[in-house]
């Protein structure tokens, strides 16, 4: 009696240098809640973007059948016409418009270009009732919490006569009560005949509501589990998510670990905009000489916020806590001071925060330590060329010369420029935030080699990564972070992906 509403067959999608989806298939039955799980980078979001037309027909290979008909979506409007609506993790509501205006944005109740407000408001009231949101249609989005905003997004989808609703991590930024309400709503919608695809990292939620689960890993479908046939445990799901071969992806390394060189104690950080929202709570971490320390955790767990707050308060407000280098307290209250104290931070978003794309390799490498190439006040250009060419050779930055603009480099080479910049600043503690994001396997290996080299020179390295194999393959010791707290610490010799995942998923502190 299987009644398939959606079938995606052999979807393959490549980005320059990376195969994001490799022959992925997905079958969703009418009226079910279908969960899609996998690690960050497994291809869940890419698959959903293919489905909703963000990546238009022709930019991928494979077939999509919706309601038995083959579809070739040109864009989102096209997929919404047939009733496929996606709600992204970052909500796409306009803050200074009202609920009603947002719900019918681009889909206005109108006649000859004139909006019918009666119809808009009364339709909005019906929709709000359906999703169980008790707010006036005229309330501005900016005055509502994230949980309610999420409901508005769903109401907006309902206004478009949705038949297949896709939710990308809908509960990631919700508290428990809001999450609970949202999940209940999903079940209600199911009873009204709306099929949903739920992308989530929270396995407890998935086991609560999902009818079936498809697991993706490394851009491929691993398996689809039927929750009604067998009893699916969280361990069973995790095993499907992480099981892969780790050999030969990481260069070998012998660690020579010395004394603690950098330590942060009782570190607390508040959100820069939301007054009472804490983003880091009671953090105590340290790194030793020659050690690579990993911080594992999901996206949104507060890792970047934590290290940026440590790096000269580049993030957050009301930061409290102490920082020590070689046992002595240091002042790292501005980025300038942090750099002078030998701390460097290579950002996760190299295009937005790491590079000046319109400038050349040379100017990007020297910007954090211009003093080192000046005679008095003048920049010594021959010296600048020599030192930057040195880094270009040493880190194997593939380019015509250091005068090439960084915008034209590949992701891996851009990352090497960012690393060169920080190496030139000669830090003792190097914080690397997702250093291999979006770069190909070969370049990753080179980056790992550089990390090993730096550690063997006696630097302390803090490495943030969403890829657990990377954390396990490169680090000596691992902190696990969840919701702004350190929830676990282990030596990598005793760590496994399952163990780290368990810390994250159960979100409770387990003392080793």
């Amino acid at each position, binding site marked *: 009696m299987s009644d398939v509403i959606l079938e995606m067959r052999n979807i393959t999608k490549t980005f320059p240098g990376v195969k994001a989806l490799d022959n992925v298939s997905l079958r969703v039955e009418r009226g079910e809640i279908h969960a899609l799980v996998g690690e960050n980078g497994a291809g869940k979001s890419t698959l959903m973007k293919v489905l909703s037309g963000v990546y238009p027909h022709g930019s991928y290979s494979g077939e999509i059948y919706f309601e038995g008909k083959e579809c070739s979506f040109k864009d989102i409007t096209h997929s919404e016409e047939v009733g496929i609506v996606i709600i992204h993790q970052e909500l796409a509501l306009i803050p200074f418009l009202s609920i009603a205006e947002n719900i019918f944005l681009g889909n206005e109740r109108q006649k000859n270009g004139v909006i019918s407000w009666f119809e808009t408001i009364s339709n909005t009231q019906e929709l709000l009732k359906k999703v169980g949101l008790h707010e006036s249609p005229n309330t501005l989005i900016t005055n509502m919490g994230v949980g309610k905003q999420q409901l508005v997004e769903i109401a907006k989808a309902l206004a478009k006569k949705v038949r297949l609703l896709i939710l990308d991590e809908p509960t990631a930024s919700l508290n428990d009560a809001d999450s609970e309400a949202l999940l209940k709503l999903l079940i209600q919608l199911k009873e009204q005949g709306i099929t949903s695809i739920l992308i989530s990292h929270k396995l407890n939620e998935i086991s609560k509501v999902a009818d079936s689960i498809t697991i993706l890993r490394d851009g491929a479908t691993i398996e689809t589990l039927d929750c009604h046939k067998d009893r699916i445990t969280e361990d069973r799901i995790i095993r499907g998510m992480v099981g892969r071969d780790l050999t030969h992806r990481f260069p070998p390394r012998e660690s020579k670990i010395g004394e603690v060189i950098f330590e942060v104690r009782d570190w607390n950080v508040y959100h820069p905009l939301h007054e009472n929202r804490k983003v880091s709570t009671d953090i105590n971490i340290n790194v030793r000489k020659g050690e690579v320390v990993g911080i594992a955790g999901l996206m949104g767990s507060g890792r970047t916020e934590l290290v940026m707050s440590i790096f000269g308060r580049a993030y957050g407000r009301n930061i409290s806590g102490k920082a020590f280098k070689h046992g002595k307290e240091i002042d790292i209250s501005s980025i300038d001071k942090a750099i002078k104290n030998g701390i460097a931070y290579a950002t996760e978003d190299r295009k937005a925060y790491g590079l000046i794309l319109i400038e050349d390799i040379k100017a990007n490498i020297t910007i954090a330590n211009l003093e080192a190439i000046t005679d008095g006040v003048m920049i010594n250009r*021959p010296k600048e060329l020599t030192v930057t060419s040195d880094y270009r050779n040493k880190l194997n930055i593939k380019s015509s010369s250091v005068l090439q603009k960084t915008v034209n480099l590949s992701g891996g080479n851009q990352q090497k420029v960012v690393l060169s*910049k920080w190496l030139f600043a000669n830090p003792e503690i190097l914080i690397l935030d997702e250093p291999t994001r979006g770069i190909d396997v070969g370049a990753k290996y080179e980056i790992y080699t550089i990390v090993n080299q730096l550690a063997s020179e006696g630097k302390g390295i803090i490495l943030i990564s969403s890829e657990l194999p990377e954390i396990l393959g490169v680090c000596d010791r691992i902190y696990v972070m969840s919701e702004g707290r350190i929830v676990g610490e282990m030596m990598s010799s005793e760590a496994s992906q399952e163990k780290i995942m368990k810390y994250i998923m159960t979100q409770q502190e387990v003392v080793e």
Partner: protein
Amino acid sequence: MKTLSNLFKENVREYGMLIALIVIMVYFQFATDGTLMKPVNITNLVLQNSYIIIMALGMLLVIIAGWIDLSVGSVAGFIGAVAAVIMVRYHQSVGLAFVVSLLAGALVGAFQGYWVAYVKIPAFIVTLAGMLIFKGLNLAVTKGESVGPFPETFQKLSSGFIPDYFHGETLHITTLVIGVLLSILLVYLDLQARNNQRKYNFEVTPFSFFIIKSIAITAVIMGFCYLMASYKGLPNILVILFILIVFYTYVTERMVIGRRIYAMGGNEKAAKLSGVNTARLLFYSFVNMGILAGLGGLVFAARLNSATPKAGAGMELDVIAAVYIGGASASGGIGTVIGAVVGAFVIGVMNNGMSILGIGVEWQQVIKGMVLLLAVFFDIYSKNKNP
């Protein structure tokens, strides 16, 4: 070895505006039956545009930093009035007036820079407010009437000429000597740069190209100095301009602070995360703009020999246009001193040439507007073609 046409293609962006300037000059030279390049007119051209160039130097830094200053015309008028009142109404010395005026310019810059850099109000709004404020203060300081005339030493600022130590009969020999020395210096610096490039194994332009370039530079400098020498020699203001241009070229190309301003304009967040104190840097850019707007105001007042309540009105348009015509990017991070100077001359030559031709002020503005649009179009077009 590259062909000349290839070289031309690669350098067309860098030299594009210079070529445009030459084309415009040649056109007006013919259209005005040779009046444009007459020594007296060339001298006038320099005098007329000196304050635009001075302010364009400040505007360039602000625009590279990613912002804009709409208030420079009003500030220039206001500072000119302050100097006039000190000298004419209070009978104080020229030196005191000069120092106080530049300080007042710095204060004005600091005032606007504070709102932009630390309170983070967009510069467009802050300087729009500044435009009104300083226009009003100019009226208040002058009490609505012209203040002048000035002591002779002050007038010399924009109408004086350097003395001729060789006492030439028909030609101003000191001017020619300066021209020769300058030519030698520029060719020498270029040669040194080439040697450095070769030393570090960078691709060097062919020697023939270098020779052509050197001859062209020498010819332009010597031709210009000859024209100047056959009138009254180099104007004082040109010497000041030259010093400022050299100084700001060094600031933008060779000094840490210049490099950081480019970085901030190119990607403010990345610059900040590299330890650049972007707020302070932006503040200084505005202080610098204030000082140069003040200097521009002094030069302008000295030229008219009076400070008027309406002085400076609309000047900001020419200044901003000069910087954009000179290849600076409206989104920040790109622009050169030489470009801004060339841009100012493009505007200046057009103003001058069209006036000689007797074209009405209404059409002058239309044409200038079209040229600005075309220049920026050309810039964006060439950027898209070879990124």
